[in-house]
């Protein structure tokens, strides 16, 4: 089994390459999920507050 990991001397390179790729994949999955979840959380807070008051400016003609 060990010679499988040794890969006649090239093991370090192959496994470090696969390792970093796996790490990048997992990191990106977590980052993507975290972004989605925090956005939803923020939206929940916004939804809890009352609807923002209408900010329509008054436009009138001077007599």
């Amino acid at each position, binding site marked *: 089994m060990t010679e*499988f990991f040794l*890969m*006649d*001397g*090239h*093991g370090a*390179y*192959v496994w*470090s*390459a*696969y390792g*970093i*790729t796996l790490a*990048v*994949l997992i*990191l*990106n*999955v977590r*980052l*993507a*999920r975290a*972004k*989605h*979840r*925090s*956005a*939803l959380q*923020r*939206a*929940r807070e*916004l*939804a809890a*507050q009352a*609807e*923002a008051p209408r900010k329509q400016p008054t436009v009138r003609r001077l007599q």
Partner: protein
Amino acid sequence: MKLPRWFHQLGSPPYVYRLADRLCPWLGWLGVSLLVVGAYWGLVIAPPDYQQGESYRIIYIHPQTAYIGMMSYVVMAIAAGIGYVWRLKLAHAVAVSAAPIGAWFTFCALFTGAVWGRPTWGTYWQWGDPRIMFEALLLFLFLGYLALRGAFDERDKADRVTAILAVVGVVNIPIVHYSVEWWNSIHQGPTILRAGGPAMTNDMLAPFLIMVAAFTLTFYWLLLRRLQGEIVEREGDARWIRELVGAGTP
């Protein structure tokens, strides 16, 4: 210019948000299973290369990550271009979502490329290999995009300024690519190694293609998840968000 109906539908955030919700499970599970199958096949079953030996197995991930990095930049530039021309907030959201993914995968391609270079050419940073130099320049372009985006506090302005940078970047990519290729051909002469390495026998091709498919599916899963986050952030307290959030989805 009258745009087709589906294009408008793609332009409406709630529609795309729900579409992403339906697609993501499929993309996710299919992608992961292909990754596992491809990795196992490439590491265990496929024969080592007669010339490079075991280190050749990196061919099942390095080209894929490089291709995803490149594709991310193109997706980013096209989305940014559409967002800029038609003022589609959603297109900008796609560009923003694609950028970090591209940056991470380009970094990964750079690392795996350098590690692969070690046993084959004897150095970590093989100046001779034009692809490594191109990956580095592509990574700088991504970092430039992300830095410029981070420098603006107003989202609308950040979208439109970085869109211009993305479009200029994508126009420059072929130029940078071929000038690096040209530069390499004069310094090192035709490399003994063909660009993609020695011709792949059939039993090497299968895992290679599986990994390409796996990475592509993963890319779209990541893109859609990030896009959903962007959409919710950008829609603020729109009505459909209130319903969505009110319903307390996870």
